[in-house]
């Protein structure tokens, strides 16, 4: 109350004026509901229940659409830029390649080859090298076989060291000795207690304390080996002998700065390690560069390395460049050679043919819709069944029927020859080309044009035409100036439907299109199911989607999307 009292009057007791001030203060504040909460809040609370209920009602569909439609599309689109496989399969090589000058014209350092040896060794164990080869083969032919060959032979490279270590001391042959050296005491104890035939999980390998500082490369390699045996192969680590690559790593450690630290080491196998460290200087060494060159002389080709380097980032625009007939080169993107260009031509053809199909659907569908809209309801319904009839027939059947109709010895050609319009020697080529695709697709998509046209025309009262004629317009003027403008929303709706369906059509062009009548979708399908280049397929699909959205936007700007009616 004192808050409200005018300070200048400095009265301690409330006055009648205070009551008015209090009322004013309340009036200027938020409007209150009957229970005293602000009206806004109680309104939004009341609406929230309604909104939640409405959301719950559509939730099943929403979730269904999200899971089965939006998520797969998003995933597919993501594949058009995704490029994990190179960096994941060659984790050691790709960072080192970043420093290599691709324009030098010489292959990278021997150190890179060593990293490549390690990467390919592990990849080969996981059978990943073929996947990588397949991926790089999209960009450069021969990569697939290069990696497959290398994966097979890389096993032998480390064996040089393995043999020498084993010759030095039989101790190094046994996996158990390795486990004792590299694994922690607790893990070794657990392994001893573990029953391989029981249900219990194999104790996961743990490095011994301090071994990482002592033998860094060996530790890393051995850990990777142990993990692979335990999780991927699911074999008993106690019964396995280490891979050749572990010996290479040990050799590297012992020839490196680690050797000096061995003097202070007192863990398991200390004696054997010191003996080995003393002996390694006399070991026969492996020249990785020469070894890879032995496998395939392509490994000394800087172009191979360029390709690997170009595609080592986790995201790439390579698929998109490919989809518009370009390619990556050391100097940035460039057009592909003329004879390899295909996609721009295909996109353009898809666009032009879709427009042609849409136009012929308008030409054929408009009169039909007009007749349907102007006939008595009973006759119109009967004819409407004829329009809808194609929907009840399999798409494949209808398309195949066109094959029968259009081929050179087919119904249409026979009729034309019989009528004498066409000489039997030069029958028309109506199928396995663009003509075939346009004819068949116009037929298949015609209902999608007629239906919206019909429903829009039904709403145009016949009195408009009568009015126009009574005002002195001829039949044609009445139609063109009065009826046609009002049917434009139907044309718009039908055209959008037909065009969008046409631009992504696949089956019909595949069957009747031959080579010159196929669409971009056929190419996408090819990359999805045959060449398995999903990234390129995704890029092509993304471009197609973007093109449709762009056209839709242009349509909205030019005609106006609210000028599209499906009826009413």
């Amino acid at each position, binding site marked *: 109350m004192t808050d409200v009292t005018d300070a200048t009057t400095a009265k301690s007791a409330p006055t009648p004026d205070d009551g008015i001030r209090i009322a004013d203060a309340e009036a200027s504040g938020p409007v209150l509901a009957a229970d005293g909460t602000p009206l806004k809040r109680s309104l939004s609370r009341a609406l929230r229940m309604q909104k939640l209920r409405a959301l719950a009602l559509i939730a099943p569909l929403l979730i269904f659409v999200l899971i089965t439609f939006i998520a797969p599309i998003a995933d597919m689109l993501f594949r058009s830029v995704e490029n994990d496989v190179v960096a994941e399969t060659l984790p050691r090589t790709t960072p080192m390649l970043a420093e290599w000058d691709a324009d030098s014209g010489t292959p990278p350092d021997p150190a890179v080859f060593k990293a490549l040896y390690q990467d390919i060794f592990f990849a080969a164990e996981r059978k990943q090298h073929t996947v990588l080869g397949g991926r790089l083969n999209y960009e450069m032919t021969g990569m697939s076989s290069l990696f497959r060959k290398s994966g097979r032979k890389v096993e032998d490279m480390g064996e040089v060291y393995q043999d020498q270590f084993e010759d030095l001391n039989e101790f190094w042959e046994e996996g158990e000795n390795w486990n004792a050296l590299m694994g922690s005491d607790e893990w070794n104890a657990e392994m001893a207690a573990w029953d391989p035939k029981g249900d219990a999980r194999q104790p996961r390998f743990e490095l011994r304390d301090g071994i990482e500082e002592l033998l860094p490369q060996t530790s890393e390699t051995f850990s990777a080996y142990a993990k692979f045996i335990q999780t991927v192969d699911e074999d008993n680590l106690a019964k396995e002998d280490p891979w050749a690559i572990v010996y290479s790593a040990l050799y590297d450690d012992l020839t490196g700065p680690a050797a000096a630290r061995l003097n202070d080491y007192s863990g398991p196998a200390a004696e054997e390690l010191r003996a080995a460290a003393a002996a390694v200087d006399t070991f026969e060494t492996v020249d990785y560069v020469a070894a890879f060159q032995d496998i395939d002389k392509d490994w000394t080709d800087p172009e191979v390395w360029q390709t690997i380097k170009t595609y080592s980032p986790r995201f790439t625009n390579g698929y998109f460049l490919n989809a518009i007939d370009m390619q990556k080169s050391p100097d940035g993107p460039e057009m592909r050679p003329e004879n390899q260009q295909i996609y721009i031509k295909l996109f353009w053809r898809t666009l032009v043919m879709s427009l042609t199909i849409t136009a012929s659907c308008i030409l054929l569908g408009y009169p039909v819709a007009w007749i349907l809209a102007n006939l008595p309801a009973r006759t119109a319904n009967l004819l409407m069944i004829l329009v809808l009839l194609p929907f009840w027939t399999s798409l494949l059947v209808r398309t195949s029927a066109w094959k029968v109709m259009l081929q050179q010895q087919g119904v249409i050609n026979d009729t034309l020859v019989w009528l004498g319009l066409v000489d039997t020697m030069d029958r028309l080529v109506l199928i396995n080309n663009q003509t075939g695709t346009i004819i068949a697709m116009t037929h298949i998509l015609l209902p999608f044009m007629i239906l919206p046209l019909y429903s829009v025309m039904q709403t145009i*009262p016949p*009195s*408009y035409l*009568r*009015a*126009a*004629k*009574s*005002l*002195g*317009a*001829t*039949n044609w*003027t*009445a139609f063109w*100036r*009065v009826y046609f*403008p*009002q049917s434009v929303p139907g044309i718009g709706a039908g055209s959008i439907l037909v065009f969008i369906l046409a631009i992504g059509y696949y089956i019909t062009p595949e069957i009747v299109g031959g080579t010159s009548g196929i669409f971009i979708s056929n190419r996408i399908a090819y990359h999805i199911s045959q060449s398995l280049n999903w990234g390129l397929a995704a890029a092509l699909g993304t471009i197609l989607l973007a093109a449709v959205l762009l056209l839709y936007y242009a349509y909205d700007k030019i005609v106006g999307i609210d000028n599209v009616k499906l009826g009413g």
Partner: protein
Amino acid sequence: MADTQKNGAFVEFDRVQKSYDGETLVVKDLNLSMPKGEFLTMLGPSGSGKTTCLMMLAGFETATHGDIRLDGVSINNIPPHKRGIGMVFQNYALFPHMTVAENLSFPLEVRRISKSERKEKVNRALSMVQMQDFAGRRPTQLSGGQQQRIALARALVFEPELVLMDEPLGALDKQLRETLQFEITNLAHELGITVVYVTHDQTEALTMSDRVAVFDDGRIQQLAPPDKLYEEPENSFVAQFIGENNTLDGVVQEISDGICVVKLDSGEVIDAKPVNVSKVGERTRVSIRPERVEINPQLGENAHTLKAEVLEFIYMGDVFRTRLRVAGVDDFVVKTRNRADQVRLEPGSHVQIGWLPEDCRALDA
């Protein structure tokens, strides 16, 4: 042709018949002749053939038989757009994709009238209906009454001599309808145009027209000026259809000298004016307008009066409407003006009623 010119007929229907299905006639033997400048209304219940007649005149329907002549020339084979007849439609039929000005300029454009002249004529037509400020609007942005004004202006803008109107005020509210009725008649007379107006609203027909053609069953039942139509209906349909009407059924007992005596089915005897009864013993339906009935009349010695029982009294402001039981009929209505000395009859009371013989018309049964 020479005949029609002599008669001064501008629009002429000559034994016109129309059938849609080849089995029934929608219009049966229509004969009608209109002089220039007349405002003629076709009035009738729905399905009476009045709109069909209008459509035949406009050229949207062809006559199955007979001749339709405009200014002496048969127009049966002239397409609608060459007839030069203005038409106002029931739902206005303003082109929704054009502005008001474009709608009005449309008939001028198709007549290849120059742009400046078009503009001038459109403005003149718009000012005729007081809609100058709405030239740039779309029809959907206008109210019903405004749309109707535009439709009217569009039908007049190319200066036709004959304008047809098909129930143009049907969709408007009562007040607006009355205003527009007045405006349309005024415009028609000012411009001297001939108008054929179709409606099912008898008040509209009576207030607007020079002559009214009452349609029923594909025929013109009566063609007369409004006052004659109301006061001297020629048959019981017209009597029933136009205004409120009391009917009593009976048999003609005597006919003489413009007066006939009718014995009602209930036994009472009344005087009437024979209209389409000709001989004694014929069944007839006598018709009396509610406002011509007098209560407790002083009519003289030989006039017949009837006993009546008051069933209901309704106060309607300017008039009182009293429902009576007369000669066994329960819906006999008497209308009396609300005068200072007027008696309000109590339901249940008994009175005598009577009328002048010439107000009671003996029509066909």
